[in-house]
């Protein structure tokens, strides 16, 4: 037991602290300190990133929006920019934990914790976001899908941190949907979470992206279902064929929050949301 918390003021200080020995990063602490308290990890040096990753939380460019990794869920959920450009990201951040956890927890922490049921990951998978990494060697970006490799596992190298997330702007008008099913709304990590963005006319689906949480080792985009739905009319038959395809793409597990069977039922049922409107 016993650790020290170091708070570098800028990127240079941060990089030299990383080079001095083993460390764990700290942003909001809502995952890290719980793990320490539960004796799952026992770090001696903790590096707080919140001062070193500075500057405005949101940066709008021509074709994309850059979001600092230390942006809190409350800041995302309340941002008029995010509500306008990426409603699904605002609503997924608004679904995290409870009021206090949204004030503390950050999007960078949510990504790096890499839980299969992390709420904002649903939106980041849907929006094809990139994770921007910084180390003493320079900068690189990975798509969210490539960055997250398994439950709690990422491509983050030692000596590297997430500085921002880049989200490409959408062209055209999409309907955004996010839903999380849990026993209690707050605090409970979900039984199943689901989101989609959909561009459709009365006749047919022009573009659809789907993402599912808590039904596989990572958040997933069920590609076969997306491909099948492209160009289809949204009717009962389409949905039930999509549900059969989805069943093949998910691999829910049993745990204390729900049985595999229950998770599958919930996941399949959420597809019916596409028919609303």
């Amino acid at each position, binding site marked *: 037991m016993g650790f020290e*918390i*170091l*708070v570098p003021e800028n990127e240079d200080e941060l990089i030299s602290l990383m080079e001095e020995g083993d460390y764990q990063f700290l942003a909001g602490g*809502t995952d890290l300190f*719980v793990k320490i308290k539960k004796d799952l990890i026992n770090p001696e040096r903790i590096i707080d990133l919140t001062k070193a990753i500075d500057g405005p939380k949101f940066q709008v460019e021509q074709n994309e929006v850059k979001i600092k990794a230390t942006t809190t869920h409350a800041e995302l959920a309340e941002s008029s920019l995010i509500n306008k450009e990426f409603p699904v990201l605002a609503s997924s951040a608004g679904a995290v934990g409870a*009021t206090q956890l949204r*004030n*503390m927890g950050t999007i960078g922490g949510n990504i790096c914790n890499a839980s299969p049921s992390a709420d904002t990951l649903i939106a980041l998978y849907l929006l094809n976001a990139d994770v921007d990494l910084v180390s003493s060697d320079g900068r690189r970006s990975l798509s969210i899908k490539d960055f997250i490799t398994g439950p709690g596992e990422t491509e983050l190298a030692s000596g590297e941190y997430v500085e921002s997330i880049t989200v490409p702007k959408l062209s055209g008008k999409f309907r955004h949907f996010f839903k999380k099913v849990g026993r209690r709304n707050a605090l409970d990590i979900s039984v199943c979470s689901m989101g989609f963005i959909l561009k459709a006319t009365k006749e047919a689906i022009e573009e659809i992206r789907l993402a599912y949480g808590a039904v596989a080792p990572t958040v997933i985009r069920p590609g076969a279902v997306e491909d099948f739905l492209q160009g289809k009319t949204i009717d009962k038959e389409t949905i039930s064929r999509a549900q059969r395809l989805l069943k093949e793409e998910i691999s829910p597990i049993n745990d204390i929050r729900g049985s595999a069977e229950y998770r599958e039922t919930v996941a399949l049922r959420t597809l019916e949301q596409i028919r609303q409107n």
Partner: protein
Amino acid sequence: MRVEFTVNGEQYELDTDGDTRLLDYLRDELGLTGVKEGCGVGECGACTVLVEGKPTLSCLTYLPQIDGKEITTIEGLGENGKLHPLQEAFVETGGVQCGFCTPGFIMVSLKLLERNPDPTRKEIREWVEGNICRCTGYTKIVDAVQLAGKWLREKGDKVEL
């Protein structure tokens, strides 16, 4: 590291290596025992304080994280020995039974009333989702927040954090 912060308007400055929770500092060093430890892992809300006006869990916050910041605990509410209207409303409605959860509910609800002095029951329920009460069944807690909002509106007062 050297950290500086204020608690209920008083300035503090000290050296810390980091391994002290805000919760323990407030209770053990400053005697502010209105801050409660329920679960210690973010699940009950009993330890809620305001950091820069934002409801924050003091069980998952360590001293280096509050450098330069303003902290408010339940002891910092009310003026001249008079309870804050939200505290008064909890007394009035019976929103307090054993009282263990009450400071946490009050600190988190203050922020809701600052944003919206006329919240619906559903909005209140959602806002306090991270706070657990083992006694009241929540109905009277929701009543209290609504009553405080009503009093504030009648008097033309605002919650300012």
